């Protein structure tokens, strides 16, 4: 444990300042590379419904993440996509991706984000037909892909370890006030975040709070963020609500919720903008799947407590 802590401290102290300069260099190189690839390689388009039917296979892009994708065989999104594949009459295939590459794997386009802005940097092979991985609807993402109807509520909370002197906020009845109260507490506190995900600090303007932003090493799993907090390598971390609920069950007495960082968000499957028919097919499938109560049962299986926080969910 101490070795992990030392390693993470080294990561934080040595690599974090360097990451900012390296990221700029990489972005520049990546942009150049993407431009070359665009010029050299013909553009590759994501598959639409007919292509999927023709191929006889639906490729599900995902990242092992909480109870959305527990494994290749289980998880809310895995089961949902399997049902969708069955609905289409094609085979199901899980394509493991990463938070950084998952959109590119769907669209076949590399890009850079800055806040809500997106800059295309090149092309890449299309790896899948649909993203479903507890994928939060974010503005920059909407610029790259089409989201189907929202299928899961979420939000982002700030979590700290139990012994922290950072006390949880007292609900005021206004989430915005509660967000502000949390941000006020972040001044001088370290916050572990994950870029290019819903935990990206730029989405919530955390830089303005005076907090010490700690980026999670892209090679590491998002699931390691709370253990890093428990190990007190970082003081706080952002975490979306579904994962925070699981963490509370998993590590009772080790963490505490400080308060909200975002307003309510929604998750939804993402489709390539070149796959409107596939998206429409999913909408049709999901409408039916929801109406017969199957989806509610699926949610109850993986996130039973979500209804306590979002009573209006699925109503």
């Amino acid at each position, binding site marked *: 444990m101490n070795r992990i802590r030392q390693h993470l401290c080294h990561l934080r102290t040595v690599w974090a300042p360097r990451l900012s300069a390296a990221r700029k260099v990489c972005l520049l190189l990546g942009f150049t590379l993407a431009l070359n690839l665009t010029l050299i390689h013909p553009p590759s388009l994501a598959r639409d419904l007919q292509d999927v039917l023709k191929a006889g296979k639906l490729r599900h892009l995902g990242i092992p993440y909480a109870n959305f994708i527990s494994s290749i065989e289980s998880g809310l999104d895995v089961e949902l996509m399997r049902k969708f594949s069955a609905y289409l009459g094609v085979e199901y295939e899980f394509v493991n991706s990463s938070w950084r590459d998952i959109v590119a794997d769907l669209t076949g386009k590399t890009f850079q984000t800055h806040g809500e802005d997106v800059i295309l940097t090149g092309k890449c092979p299309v790896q899948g037909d649909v993203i479903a991985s507890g994928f939060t609807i974010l503005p920059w993402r909407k610029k790259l892909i089409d989201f189907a109807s929202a299928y899961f509520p979420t939000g982002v909370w700030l979590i700290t370890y139990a012994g922290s002197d950072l006390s949880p906020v*007292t*609900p005021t009845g206004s989430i915005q006030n509660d967000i502000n109260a949390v941000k006020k507490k972040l001044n001088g506190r370290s916050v572990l975040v994950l870029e290019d995900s819903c935990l990206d600090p730029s989405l919530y303007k955390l830089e303005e709070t005076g907090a010490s932003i700690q980026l999670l090493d892209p090679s590491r799993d998002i699931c390691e963020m709370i253990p890093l907090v428990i190990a007190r390598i970082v003081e706080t971390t952002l975490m979306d609500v579904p994962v925070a609920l699981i963490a509370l069950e998993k590590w009772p007495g080790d963490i505490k919720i400080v308060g909200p960082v975002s307003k309510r968000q929604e998750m939804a499957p993402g489709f390539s903008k070149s796959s409107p028919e596939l998206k429409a097919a999913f909408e049709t499938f999901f409408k039916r799947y929801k109406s017969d109560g199957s989806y509610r049962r699926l949610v109850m299986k993986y996130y039973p407590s979500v209804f306590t926080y979002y009573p209006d969910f699925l109503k």
Partner: protein
Amino acid sequence: MILRHLKKQITSRLPVFWTIHQKKPILALTAASLLLVAFIIFLVVSNFRSQMALREASLNRFRLYLEKRATSLGYFFSERKYDLKMLAHSREINNYFINRTLGMSVQYGLKVNLFMIKQLLEKTLAARNIQGTKIYSRFVLLDNAGNILVDTAGKLDRHFAVPRPVQGSPDFFLTIEDNQPQLLISTSCSYKGKTAGGLVVWLNDRALFSHFLTLNDNNTRSGAGVLDDKGNTLLPDSAAPQAIIQQVLHETLKKRNKPSVFYEQHPLGRGNQEMLMACLPIPNIGLQYLAWIPTDQITGGFTPMRLIIGMGALAIVVLVALGSILWFSAQNLILKTRFDEAAKQQTILFSKNQQLKAEIQKREQAECELVKQRTLRIRSDRLRSLGEMAAGIAHELNQPLVGVRGFAELMIYALDNEQDPSIDSIRDYAEKIVSQADRMVHIINHIRLFARDAGGVETSVVDLNQTADSALNLLRAQFKSHGLRLQQNFSAHPLWVKVNAFSVEEVILNLLSNARHAVEQRKAVEDKSYHPCVRVNTSAYCKNGSPAIAVLVIDDNGNGIDQDVADKIFDPFFTTKAPDKGTGLGLSICKSIVESFEGTIEYVCAADEWTRFEIRLPICAQEG
């Protein structure tokens, strides 16, 4: 008493010889009856004692059964206490209090703990069941202020009075909710050695009652429940009448302060049905198990006293039946004796009837013989009369015979002495001979008919004067030969009567014969101045100017009839003559003959002077 009466009845009705012979069997039967009664009494007593022992055993078994149920309830409640303890110390509840201590709000974090607690409680609700019946109906998690944090019934906004949980063993208590008694168990939840909240559970009535409280029967008058030390009760909402429940509670609360088990019988409910009531402490908790049940459900509806009454009734029935059998047997014996006597009487009567028949037959034979004898006597009498009339008959026949001889001699003389006798004179003589012969034939025929038809019943209309004259002709010569005078004075007019002429002649001959005897007897004793005489007169007695009755009177101046025998002269076989002179039937035959022609015969006499017989016959018209 019955036997004595029966014996008296029998001995009074039966013949003495029967009573003597049947005395031993009756005594034996009486002894057998007494033995039977003694045996029945023995059975009744034995059964009564057995029933009492059985009743006591049933009560003891019921007592043990209730104690076992109370013990089972104790174990059951111990398990519930354990359940509650485990829940109170569960990770979920502990996490909640940890997170709450960390300052987390319900909105941001604690909701998930409460959700998990609710899940745990609901899982426990579902898991704890007895044969599909849930043991718990509701869980509630409270904070120290009494606010409901989790309620499996979803009644978070409702306030109810639950005793503040205290540290220690889970506590049982009864409360009223929605007018329904509820049994609750509460325990405290602690965190870091301090009471942080409480957990309360509602026990499901159905599981409690159906498996632990209610007695195993379908009787609606029985019931069971739980009673706490404050007098609060948890009773089944069974079909037991409220009146019974109230009385049970009243009785129970009166005895509640008694130590240990109390177990009593009380007449309860409608019809004062006897109820068994029990109030037993449930081990390890401050509750008591209360139960009541109709006594007859345990000991059976047939109480020993009823058994005695029933057996006594049975004994009486047996005795009555035995007495009836004896009585009917005695009646049968009486009837049999009477029947035997009647059979004997019938046999005797039959033999006597046979004797009587034989006697009747003999008498009939005797009467036939008598009739024969009478007929013979009459015949001999008549022949004797004919004998007596023989002189007259001879005289009658002699006269024409003399004429026949004379005219025959004249014819002979004429034939011998006259050379030329005239044929006319010969014819005249021959005709006169024929005439005399006809006269003799007539006489002989008359006598023959008299002998044959006298006493006959065939009648014809005859002149009484001619009939009397014919009879007188037969006796006239006899009277003359005996020197007796026979006078006749007949009616100038014929007297037509419908009679048998020869029978009337027989009557006249009899009366004339008697008259002759009378005058001859007097003549024998009288001097020469006496002139015996018999007179026969006929006349008619007129009625309304015309002749109606023909009267024939025969009187004599003989010696009359003695006054001593005057009443007997018409009796058969009565005679004053010597046996060789008469049969004694003459006057009786005369009377019967005259009466057969609807006539009468009467007499008057003066002793030693005269006798007069008068025959009256109805006159009838002359035939053709």
